[in-house]
């Protein structure tokens, strides 16, 4: 196998780069070790498009965050994914926190964040956010901040890149990068060798290990775990903005925000962990998150029963402190895109631009395609066509779109089949594309149906259907199977 360029990692960074590169006459291959796009850090973060006042002026992060923020609305529109400019508040409840707010505003102005405003009228604050703590003194309002679904974004970017010619290979883990005379000649994977002269490392928390394969060792990545709660959609509107506490040196703090789907999300905390696979939530961690959120929104204390799920994600914290986006003389053809923690999601489109610049500087022949198509049709949602068009004249041809499978999120069989045709091959893959199983019953009712549909569409035995690939089989046995074997 052969490719002009290989991107390692199918997270938000890898897929944004893939889509950007799909504009050019270049044979691009994206390899991802998990069973689907966005199954790493991308699936487990807050989904915030930051305004850009947090990062120290002059850093790569600061520049790319503000730039990324301006790029997302158009990308989201092209990809047919929701992006909501809710605006964000950094909320000060103590006098000493007020100084930090002023400092953040100055920082934001230096970073060219538009529209920053300090609201110090408590009445107004409580009117705009009725459920916020009545201890609130003032807030830094950033109108450009918004929310997005990070996994939907990565999947949509990958789909669009694919339609523009990028090859995608899942369950493909890079074992080594092959070098000859200070230049890349290929990669070795669990599926064999692939020849190439260019590699972009977008491997997230594993990016230090990939970099080391090229002898580039000047940084390491520490996984920093963040834990979250997701609450019932009945709390849609409970907060109107993304609410941040005053940040600490370690993180932006525990956020209370709505998601694009209308749930309430609370999190994350920040704890270093030893293992890059340690995605476990912990009792103290979860308590820390809920208590942190209650400081901003005290009424949450009575909403614990409305939690529908908990999860944890890992940030790729680099020893450098800033994003690492660089090409090298040795080996030639290698680009690191590493240490992309928050605001990585926001910055992703700007990171992709920077990568293109690096490639151009490396005298690669980047010729634009004429037939590049930036737009992607999203999956046709039955429930949306009902609410926007009361007569539903655009009744889909396939009657499956009238058969509701997920009761909580109102997802039809047609949507699920479409997700599978677009590449979903696991339970989580369907979840991230359609929201089936993401509602208040968390798959209680639709799990048997999803197994049946996946098994039918993929022509696989039910026991081969997994939650998220590898050995995550959902129904490993058939009833009376062991009796049959004994006979």
């Amino acid at each position, binding site marked *: 196998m052969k490719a002009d360029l290989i991107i390692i990692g199918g997270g938000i960074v890898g897929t944004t780069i893939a889509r950007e590169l799909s504009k050019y006459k270049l044979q691009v291959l994206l390899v991802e070790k998990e069973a689907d796009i966005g199954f790493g850090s991308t699936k487990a973060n807050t989904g915030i498009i930051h305004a850009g006042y947090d990062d120290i002026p002059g850093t790569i992060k600061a520049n790319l965050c503000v730039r990324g923020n301006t790029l997302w609305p158009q990308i989201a529109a092209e990809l047919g994914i929701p992006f909501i400019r809710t605006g964000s508040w950094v909320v000060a409840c103590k006098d000493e926190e007020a100084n930090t707010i002023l400092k953040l505003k100055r920082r934001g102005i230096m970073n060219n964040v538009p529209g920053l405003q300090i609201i110090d009228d408590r009445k107004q604050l409580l009117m705009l956010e009725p459920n916020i703590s009545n201890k609130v003194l003032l807030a830094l309002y950033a109108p450009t901040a918004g929310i997005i679904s990070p996994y939907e974004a990565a999947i949509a970017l990958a789909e669009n890149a694919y339609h523009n010619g990028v090859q995608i290979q899942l369950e493909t883990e890079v074992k080594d990068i092959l070098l000859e005379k200070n230049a890349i000649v290929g990669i070795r994977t669990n599926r064999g060798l692939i020849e190439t002269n260019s590699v972009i490392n977008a491997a997230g928390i594993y990016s230090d290990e990939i970099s080391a394969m090229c002898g580039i060792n000047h940084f390491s990545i520490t996984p920093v775990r963040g834990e979250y709660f997701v609450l019932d959609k009945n709390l849609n509107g409970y907060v109107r903005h993304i609410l941040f506490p005053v940040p600490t040196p370690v993180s932006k703090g525990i956020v209370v925000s709505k998601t694009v789907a209308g749930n309430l999300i609370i999190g994350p905390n920040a704890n270093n962990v030893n293992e890059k696979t340690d995605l476990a*939530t912990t009792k103290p961690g979860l308590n820390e998150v809920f208590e942190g959120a209650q400081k901003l929104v005290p009424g949450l204390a009575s909403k614990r029963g409305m939690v*529908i799920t908990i999860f944890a994600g890992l940030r790729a914290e680099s020893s450098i402190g800033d994003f690492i986006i660089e090409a090298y003389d040795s080996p030639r053809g290698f680009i690191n895109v590493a240490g992309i923690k928050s605001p990585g999601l926001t910055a992703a489109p700007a990171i992709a631009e920077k990568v293109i610049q690096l490639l151009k500087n490396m005298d690669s022949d980047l010729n634009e395609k004429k037939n590049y198509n930036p737009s992607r049709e999203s999956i046709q949602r039955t429930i949306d066509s009902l609410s926007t068009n009361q007569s539903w004249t655009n009744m889909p041809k396939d009657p499956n779109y009238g058969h*509701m499978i997920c009761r909580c999120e109102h997802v039809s069989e047609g949507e699920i089949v479409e997700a599978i045709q677009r590449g979903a091959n696991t339970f989580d893959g369907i979840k991230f594309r359609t929201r089936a199983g993401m509602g*208040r*019953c968390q798959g209680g009712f639709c799990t048997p149906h999803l197994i049946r549909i996946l098994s039918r569409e993929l022509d696989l035995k039910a026991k081969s259907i997994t939650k998220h690939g590898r050995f*995550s*089989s959902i129904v490993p046995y058939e009833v009376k199977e062991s009796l049959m074997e004994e006979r």
Partner: protein
Amino acid sequence: MQNIDVAIIGGGAAGLSAAIEAKKTGAENVLVLERGEELGGILQQCIHTGFGLHYFKENLNGPEYISRFIKTVHELGIDYKLNTMVLQISPNKKLLAMNSVDGPLRLQAKAIVLAMGCREKPRGALAIPGTRPAGIFTAGTAQRLMDVEGYLVGKKIVILGSGDIGLIMARRFVMEGAKVEAVVELMPYPGGLHRNVVQCLEDFQIPLLLQHTITNIQGRDRLKRVTTAKVDKRFTPIPGTEKNIECDTLILSVGLIPENELSRGLGILIDTKTGGPFVDEHMETSERGLFACGNVVHVHDLVDHVTWSGEVAGKNAARVVLDTFPRYKERISLSAGRNVQYVVPQFISGKKPVNLSIRVKRPARRVEINIGNELAFHKPVVRPSEMVVLTLRENQIMEKTKLTVIVRKRR
């Protein structure tokens, strides 16, 4: 827009008895809207016995019990639609439903019966820490996978919660050759019916760990291990009591929630204690002509009572259509006092006999159940898992506006 007399949302035990009674009472055009692929609701997956002991005075399994109602539905020529999801109901009784044959369906009903049942609490509601591997199921989902679809979800099982479905599933797993390592219960007493504890756990020597919880879940792809711990009186895990149990499956049987998303959308008043609509003795909700019955009102432990509540709702929905619905001016509110979690119905007229469903908070022996100051009923034992049903006759009701129900030790 199709006009119907009585629209019944849900074709399970509650909905079918409501439909039958509505038809028998004289409503001509009764339509059952069922989201599943067959009538019968959750009973179709309950292949164990214990159903109908009160209603039919027979010991039936779930499909046997519900098939009798399905047969009557057919005999009476009651209309139903399967695979049909009701998306919206408005207070003026317009419904929007959807299926693959009709597409979007717009209906105008004269009366509506809500019979959507309940759903299981997921892991998130308890916020059990740990990883998120495959192999964690709510009991009802595992039951459906096993007894309808024919899949065994695992071979080394731990069950959290001793609710009835959890207990029933413990026995089913053993029968299918799986090993149930333990049933873990937070409370000092089991959550399910006494008869189920005996027949499903004790008879199969399955350990029941009372006052225990699960403090951690491990495994990346498939579940590998859970950690149990003893809890103190405030339900906090006691350090040092943690034990790891190797298992491939965790079954959650930690509670049911009445499924009232449609009711909320309608704006009818919901009782936070039951999780279901406030109802009166006719099973009418806070909106006129809108009735509710079965587990959508409160979670029942016996289907027989679900059937009865469906009959009341169906009969009165038909009376609304026929214009014979008795509306009383009198309205006595019933409220839960000492050791009472809830009482249903929450409102009565006092003009006719009514069955009260009372759920206690804590188990107790030799108790007196007081309804207001005048009335006392004696019970040798009460348990939270076993609903107390009392019949209140009209001549027993003295108070005019408010009655408090309390359960206390007999003096």
